[in-house]
C-alpha cells in the first residue's frame, strides 16, 4: 500500500498528534482542528522493515495500524520487523526517548488503554500494565494457532473469551456464540457472531445496549431489532454503539448528548445557546418546546449519511462517531470540542458531515480509528492505485 499515510485530529494534550517539545513552551496546542500527517509522531524506528538488512529487495514501506487511548497512540508496524511504538504521555522517565515497546517485538495486533497495552502474537496474547515505574506483564494466554477459521479473531477477543479494560482482565465468552469480533465501550460490549448477529451486554444506562430500555445485562443478549439483517462490523464508544450491515447500512444507538447518534440533540442546542449568551452578556430564552430531540436512542437507528454509497467501516470515540463510505469519504459527527470531527472547528454536530480535508484534497480514506477524544485516519491520494 504505497503512499498511504496516517492523519490525526482532535485531542493533542500529550502531543500524540503534533509533538510537544519537552522543557519549553508547548509547540503543539491541545486541540488539532484539522487533519495533520502523523509521520513524526508515529514511529521513531525509521522503517526497519526487513529482518535481513542486507537483502534490499525485501524492504518495503512499513505497514502501520493505529490504536489510541486518551493520552497515547500505539503505532503497530505489522510487516517486516513487527513492533509497537507508543507516543504521547510519557510517565516513565527512562522511556523519554525510547518509544519502541520492547515487549512488542513480533506482535501482530495491539490495543491500548490508559492502564494496559494488550499485544497479540502468533502464538500468544499478553496484557501489560502501564505504570510510571515501568511496564509489567499482568496476563498472558495461549493463542489458538491450530484453529484455522480463515480469518484470525481480533483483539480484544482471545481463545475462550476476551480481555476487558479493567480487572478481571480475562472474561470468558461462550463458544456457542461463535464470536468473530468484539467492541468494548466504556462500560459495555458489543459482539458480532459468525452468522452476522449482534449481541451486547454491560451497562444499559444510556441505551447503549440497544435492547430498547435502560436495563443493564450481565450476559450477552441478542439485539432483536437487528434479527434478520446480517451485520459485518461492530463498534463501541463511551456510551454508544454502532454496526454495519452486510449491505452497507449503518446503525447507531445509545447516548446522543453531543449528537453522536446522528439524531437531533437538545444538548447541542443548549450548549450553543449558552455559549452565545456569555458573549452577548444576555440570556436567550428559548420558548419553543420541541419534541424532536433525542437524548437517548435505546434501539438501533439507521443513520442517514448524505451519500448514496454504502458504509465500509465505523469507529466510535468517547462521544463521537466516524465512518468511511465505499467511495472513500470520511464522515464524522458527535462531540467536536477538541477538533475530533476534523472540520476545522470546535463545533459538535448531530448530523454526519464529510471531512473535506480528504474529499476536497483528492484523497481516498482507507481506515479510521477513534481514540476517546481524537480520530486517526489512513488515506492515500486518489490517483495512485492501492492494492
Amino acid at each position, binding site marked *: 500500500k504505497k503512499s498511504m499515510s496516517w492523519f490525526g485530529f482532535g*485531542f493533542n*494534550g*500529550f502531543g500524540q498528534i503534533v509533538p510537544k517539545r519537552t522543557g519549553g513552551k508547548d509547540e503543539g496546542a*491541545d486541540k488539532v482542528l484539522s487533519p495533520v500527517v502523523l509521520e513524526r509522531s508515529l514511529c521513531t524506528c525509521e522503517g526497519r522493515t526487513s529482518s535481513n538488512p542486507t537483502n534490499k529487495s525485501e524492504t518495503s514501506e512499513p505497514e502501520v495500524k493505529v490504536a489510541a487511548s*486518551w*493520552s*497515547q497512540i500505539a503505532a503497530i508496524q505489522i510487516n517486516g520487523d513487527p513492533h509497537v511504538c507508543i507516543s504521547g*504521555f510519557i*510517565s516513565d522517565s527512562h522511556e523519554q526517548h525510547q518509544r519502541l515497546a520492547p515487549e512488542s517485538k513480533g506482535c501482530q495486533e495491539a490495543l491500548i488503554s*490508559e*492502564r494496559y497495552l494488550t499485544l497479540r502474537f502468533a502464538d500468544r496474547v499478553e496484557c501489560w500494565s502501564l*505504570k*510510571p515505574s515501568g511496564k509489567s506483564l499482568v496476563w498472558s494466554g495461549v493463542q489458538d494457532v491450530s484453529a484455522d477459521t480463515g480469518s484470525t479473531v481480533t483483539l480484544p477477543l482471545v481463545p475462550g473469551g476476551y480481555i476487558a479494560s479493567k480487572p478481571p482482565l480475562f472474561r470468558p465468552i461462550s463458544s456457542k456464540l461463535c464470536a468473530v469480533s468484539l467492541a468494548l465501550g*466504556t*462500560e459495555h460490549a458489543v459482539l458480532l457472531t459468525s452468522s452476522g448477529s449482534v449481541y451486547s451486554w454491560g*451497562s444499559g*444506562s444510556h441505551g447503549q445496549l440497544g435492547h430498547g430500555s*435502560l*436495563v443493564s445485562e450481565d450476559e450477552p443478549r441478542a439485539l432483536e431489532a437487528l434479527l434478520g439483517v446480517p451485520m459485518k462490523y461492530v463498534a463501541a464508544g*463511551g*456510551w454508544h454503539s454502532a454496526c454495519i450491515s452486510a449491505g452497507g447500512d449503518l446503525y447507531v444507538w445509545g447516548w446522543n448528548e453531543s449528537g453522536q447518534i446522528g439524531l437531533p440533540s437538545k444538548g447541542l442546542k*443548549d450548549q450553543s445557546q449558552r455559549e452565545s449568551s*456569555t*458573549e452577548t*452578556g444576555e*440570556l436567550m*430564552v428559548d*420558548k*419553543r*418546546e420541541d*419534541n424532536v430531540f433525542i*437524548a437517548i436512542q435505546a434501539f438501533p437507528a439507521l443513520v442517514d449519511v448524505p451519500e448514496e454509497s454504502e458504509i465500509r467501516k465505523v469507529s466510535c470515540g*468517547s462521544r463521537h462517531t466516524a465512518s468511511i463510505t465505499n467511495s472513500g469519504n470520511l464522515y464524522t459527527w458527535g462531540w467536536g*470540542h477538541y477538533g475530533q470531527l476534523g472540520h476545522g472547528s470546535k463545533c459538535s454536530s448531530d448530523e454526519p458531515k464529510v471531512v473535506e480535508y480528504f474529499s476536497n484534497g483528492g484523497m481516498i480514506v482507507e481506515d479510521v480509528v477513534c481514540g*476517546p*477524544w481524537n480520530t486517526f485516519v489512513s488515506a492515500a491520494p486518489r490517483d495512485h492505485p492501492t492494492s
Partner: protein
Amino acid sequence: MAKVWRDVQAVLPATEPEFPLVFSEIVEPSVLATLELTRELLYRASDFSACAEKAQIIIDYSWEKLNTGTWRDVDKEWRRVYSYGCLFKVIGTCHGDASQAKVQEAIRTCDMGLLMGASIMDNILQRLVNVLKNKVKTQLPGEVEDTDQPCPKQKPKKDRMAEPKIDAAMSVPRVKCPALESFRSGFLMHQKPVILEGIIDHWPAFREHTWSIDYLRAVAGCRTVPVELGSRYTDEDWSQRLLTVNEFIDRYIVDEEAVGLGYLAQHQLFDQVPELKEDIRIPDYCCLGEGDEDDITINAWFGPGGTISPLHQDPQQNFLAQMYLLISFLTGKQVVGRKYIRLYSLEQTENLYPHQSQLLHNTSQVDVENPDVIQFPNFTKASYQECVLHPGEVLFIPKQHWHYVRSLELSFSVSFWWS
C-alpha cells in the same frame, strides 16, 4: 473589575507548595500530570488562559468518569478531580478583566463543582462563590416594590387552583406545638402522620426576612440549580436542566406563557446557599431520632402551582415544612404556598402497584387523582389520609409512608429527612 481578581486571589493558597494535589491510585498518571501542569501554569508561569484550557480538559475527563456507572458507584476521587477542574477554570476566568458575564460564568462553574464535585481545599469553591456573589450587580429587595415589576404567574384569586375538599374522616390530624414526648408516643412510635402547627413560627424566614420571590432572587438569583421539567418524573418527557435561580423564576414562575412545568425539586439548596440556611431551623423533634444532626438531609422544593410528586415512599422519616411566600399583586400582598397531599401507609403497598423495575420500585404506577381503575382495580380499595398543607405548617411523613404531593399555587417547601 480588578477588584474581583484581588478578592479571588485572597482565597487561593499563596504558594504552589500550599496547593495540594493528592489523589488515590484510581486517578491515572496522565490525569495527575495534567493537574500538576495546570498548577505550575498558575504559580510559575502565571499563564491564566493556558490554565483555563487545561482546566477544561480536567473537567471534561472527570465529567466522563462521573457519568460512568451509577452515581453511587462514582469514586469520590473523580468528584474531587472535577472540583479541581472547576477551581482552575474559575481562576482562569476571573483573572484580568472580569466582566459581569465572566463573574456570572465563574459562579456557574463554582456551582457545577458544588453540585457534582466533592469538597476540596476546605470547601474552596463555596468560599469562592461567597466572594463572587457579592460582585454581581443585582437589585436589592427593598427596591422592587413598584407595580411595574412582573407579577408571578399567579392568577387572580378566583382562578386559582381549587382547594380539594378534604373528607373529614380521612383528614390528617393537626396538633399545635406538641411536647417532644407527646409527638413521640402519639405519632412517631406508631408511625402515624400528623400536621404540626406553630412549630416553625420562630424561623427567621417568617420573622426577619419574610420570603418573597424578590428575596430569593437577591440571595440566590445568580446561583445554578437543577430544575425538573415535565409533569412528573415518571413521564417520558421528563428531564432535568441546569438553570440559574433567576432563569428558573423568569421562565417557570413569573412567565405567563411558560410552556410546561418547571420544578426546583429535591435539591440541597441550603448547603449551596448558606445564607438561606440561616433563615430556617432543624425541627427539635428530629432529636428523637438516632442519627446525627449532620446526617439530616434538607431539601428545597420550589415551583409554581401544578407541580406533582407521584405517589412514592422514602427510606427516612420526613418533616415537610411549608414556607410563606409573600407575593405582590396590583391589589395588594398575599401569602401563598399550599399543597395537597395524600398519604398511604406501608400496609397498603399491594394496592398501590409499585413499579417492578429497580429504578422505580419505590414509586407507584397509579396517578392518584386520576387513577386508571381498569389497570389498577385495587387502588380504590386502599385506605388513605389527605390534607391541604398551609404555609407555616409541618407535615410528619413517617418512614416508608407512601405520599403524593400536588402544589395548588406557587409554593416553597423544605423537607427534613432524618432517622
